[in-house]
């Protein structure tokens, strides 16, 4: 098997992550809810995950890190925190995943909020000047997918934030956290949303938000928090405000181990490895007749290790099937939950076949993937 679907979920997970989850499941786990030793150990586990994520994003205060089941939940909570109402104008990129697009579509349809998506340039990359040009007096929020899960295009997020001035920005790091160094992001991004199971190498069911001081927030759900138990009002302080209900201690044990693994390995080294594999794959695939890349082309560093291709004469799903059946290469075909990105890339509705590399992929696998494309395109593909 050659696993090239790391943009969906990373595989394999570091052994330390697997062990951490196992250890957590062999102990009682009710963080912040009781005073006994097991509850305290569970609390410390969750705290370790909080500290790890704070370090990944360069946040000085772990209390600003709030956990959620996934990045979609986190984005919904983040958008809701701004309490936007009729007359508000919201900007986003045009390469958004449905995790941002659907919450924005929901509020723009129901609440009289105007949502405007900024298209990428001809090179497939968002231009900060295009955001600046669209800013209005009533622009209240920018929501940005840091890297497209379809084209791999890396958005110049900090430059867009600088162009936006005082307008707050939510950054969706689903495709960058753990794969791209982000250790300064917490100093300028108003809300960072993350998922634990992709580049961060943690378990599914983990994710969250890192909220900059002074940024508004409000609970998406209320309930038990282990704090202010005497009150029927949910706590208004972080992280409790956004963490109703018992947290996913088993998953967060894995996320804590994953963050520690990544910090020891160095995210910059992960980035270098993944981009080396991406370069090898794109260079090989660029020689395949009838094959087109979506987004930034070979040699362009403004991308992550996610490469989608369209091959003449074969659908995205058939190509994915041929790759798996003939070569054991696992990719993802279709629209990747991101119809906006495919529309912006000219690949809607047929979609594309996506190759996404991760830390545990090898150069040989990148070469093999490009070679398989060449054989299939030439009509010599294995069956």
């Amino acid at each position, binding site marked *: 098997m050659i696993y090239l679907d790391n943009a969906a979920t990373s595989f394999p997970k570091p052994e330390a992550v697997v062990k951490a989850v196992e250890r957590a499941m062999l102990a009682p786990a009710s*963080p*912040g*809810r*009781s*005073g*006994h*030793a097991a509850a*305290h150990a569970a*609390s*410390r586990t969750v*705290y370790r995950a*909080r500290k790890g994520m704070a370090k990944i994003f360069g946040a000085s205060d*772990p*209390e600003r890190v709030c956990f959620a089941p996934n990045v979609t939940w986190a984005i919904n909570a983040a958008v809701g925190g701004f309490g936007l109402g009729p007359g508000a104008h919201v900007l986003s990129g045009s390469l958004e995943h449905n995790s941002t697009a659907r919450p924005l579509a929901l509020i723009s349809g129901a609440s009289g909020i105007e949502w405007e998506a900024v298209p990428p340039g001809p090179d497939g990359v968002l231009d900060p000047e295009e955001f600046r040009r669209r800013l209005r007096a009533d622009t209240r929020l920018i929501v940005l997918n840091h890297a497209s899960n379809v084209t791999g295009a890396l958005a110049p997020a900090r430059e867009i934030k600088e162009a936006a001035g005082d307008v707050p920005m939510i950054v969706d790091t689903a495709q960058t956290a753990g794969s791209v160094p982000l250790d300064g992001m917490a100093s300028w991004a108003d809300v960072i949303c993350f998922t634990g199971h992709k580049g961060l190498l943690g378990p599914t069911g983990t994710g969250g938000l890192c909220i900059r001081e002074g940024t508004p927030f409000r609970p998406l759900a209320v309930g038990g928090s*282990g*704090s*202010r*138990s*005497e009150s029927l009002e949910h*706590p208004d*302080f972080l*992280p*409790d405000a956004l963490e109703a209900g018992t947290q996913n201690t088993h998953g967060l044990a894995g996320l804590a181990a994953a963050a520690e693994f990544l910090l020891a390995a160095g995210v910059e080294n992960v980035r270098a490895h993944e981009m080396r594999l991406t370069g090898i794959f794109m260079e090989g695939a660029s020689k395949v007749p009838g094959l087109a890349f979506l987004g930034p082309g070979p040699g362009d560093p403004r991308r992550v290790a996610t490469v989608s291709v369209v091959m003449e004469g074969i659908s995205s799903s058939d190509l994915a099937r041929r790759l798996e059946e003939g070569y054991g290469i696992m990719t993802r075909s279709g629209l990747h939950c991101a119809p906006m990105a495919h529309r912006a890339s000219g690949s809607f509705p047929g979609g594309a076949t996506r190759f996404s590399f991760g830390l545990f992929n090898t150069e040989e696998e990148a070469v093999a993937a490009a070679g398989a494309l060449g054989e299939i395109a030439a009509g010599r593909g294995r069956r």
Partner: protein
Amino acid sequence: MSAGAAARRTRTAARPGLPLTGTGKAGGRQDSPLNDGQGDIILVFASNTRILEAEELLEEGGLPFILVPVPKEVNPNCGLAISLREGDRDLILPALADAGLMPQSAYLRRGDEFAGYPLDGSG
């Protein structure tokens, strides 16, 4: 779960009559104060995360404290509180203040009696 049980969890039981010194790994039972005339200061924090930060800070500093369940006599929350000997106040409270980790409230415990404890140094 009694306060003493929580203390047993993370701390070596102190010998009665000896002062707590040196490290958070020393400790004493809050329901049986040491025979030195001191009370215990109970620090209650706003959130579970905040107390974990405080615990980490004090542990790293080798400061004397123990964790106890939040006494129900003073606060209905279900988590933990930091307990220190009254005489160690000047070791611990400035360290917490410097780190921006001051508790939400504090109480002085003598036996089964609790009283509010001012955090402004007037106590």
